[in-house]
């Protein structure tokens, strides 16, 4: 009896998807955004310590080489700015240069202070002259002017 049920169930295998759907779905799946795949090869878990150790060894080797090689094969300074003689002469001239710069600064300051004092004490300086200020005030005063023509036009508009 159970076998008869199973036989009936097996008939459901004949159900097939629509061919149009199969093609359409296929195109839509692959036309959609492609998933992000890693292009780097995967490292198996057991190999991770090996990779870490080899990386550390490589770094140590590079550091060692960068210290040992210059000591074994010393080379002359390849840059003019690193030449010891030039550096020594530059250092020797340093105080003189500083003193000269200080003198120049003091001279320019003296000039600036002197001109400021002259300006303050001079009563004829334009921006402090009282007469000039009064003249400007008078010219700036508003004069009430009335235009009869404008008034009549406004009244016409309001009406």
């Amino acid at each position, binding site marked *: 009896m159970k076998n008869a049920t199973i036989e009936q169930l097996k008939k459901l*295998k004949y*159900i*097939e998807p*629509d061919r149009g759907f199969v093609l359409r779905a296929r195109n839509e*799946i692959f036309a959609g955004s492609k*998933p*992000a*795949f890693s292009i780097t090869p995967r490292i198996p878990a057991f190999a991770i310590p090996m990779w870490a150790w080899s990386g550390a060894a490589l770094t140590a080797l590079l550091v060692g080489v960068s210290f040992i090689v210059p000591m074994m094969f010393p080379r002359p300074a390849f840059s003019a700015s690193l030449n010891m003689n030039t550096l020594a002469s530059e250092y020797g001239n340093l105080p003189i240069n500083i003193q000269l710069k200080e003198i120049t600064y003091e001279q320019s300051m003296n000039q600036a202070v002197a001109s400021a004092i002259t300006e303050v004490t001079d009563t004829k300086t334009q921006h402090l002259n009282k007469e000039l200020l009064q003249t400007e005030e008078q010219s700036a005063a508003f004069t009430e002017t009335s235009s009869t023509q404008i008034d009549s036009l406004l009244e016409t508009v309001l009406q």
Partner: protein
Amino acid sequence: MKEEELLIQKAKQGDDISFGKLYDTYLPSIYRFVFLKIGRKEDAEDITQKVFVSAWQSLKGFEFKGFPFSSWLYRIASNAVIDYYRTWKGNISIDLVPEEYFSESMNEEGRIDDNFDIARVRTAIAKLEPDQQNVVIMKFVSDLSNKEIAESLGKTEGAIRVIQHRALKQLKTLIDTNEERHNRTTKEA
């Protein structure tokens, strides 16, 4: 299995031709599973497509553990069906399976005769518990082993055997009851 494993490895690296081969192999059985669970052509097509889109998108996370690729696809499909029923509020369709759904290998007579049998069985399957439906379809329609079904549904093989036994027993009762009712109606008419 080795060929499938190779296809999966290539597909995981973004080879769409390899994934296309997996699609061609498994689409009919996944569609059949979804269609029998849902009973509506358009919805079954939508869900089947979603299953393969999801598989393509999350293939990177798939780990080959000796089970066929289908076990993973069935798991995605059964979750997709659960999601579908969570939001769907209609009635389960118990219509006859339209003729165009049958494979072309069947002859005309076979189609007509079997159409009634299939409709009866589908009606009965729709009345089973969701787990029973999954096991019955996977075991007798998709021909998966108990081990593969257990992997797909996240249950033990023992649990699958129990579900299968109960499902067949209940299915037989449902089919017999339907047949008796059908015969009674025919006599009365």
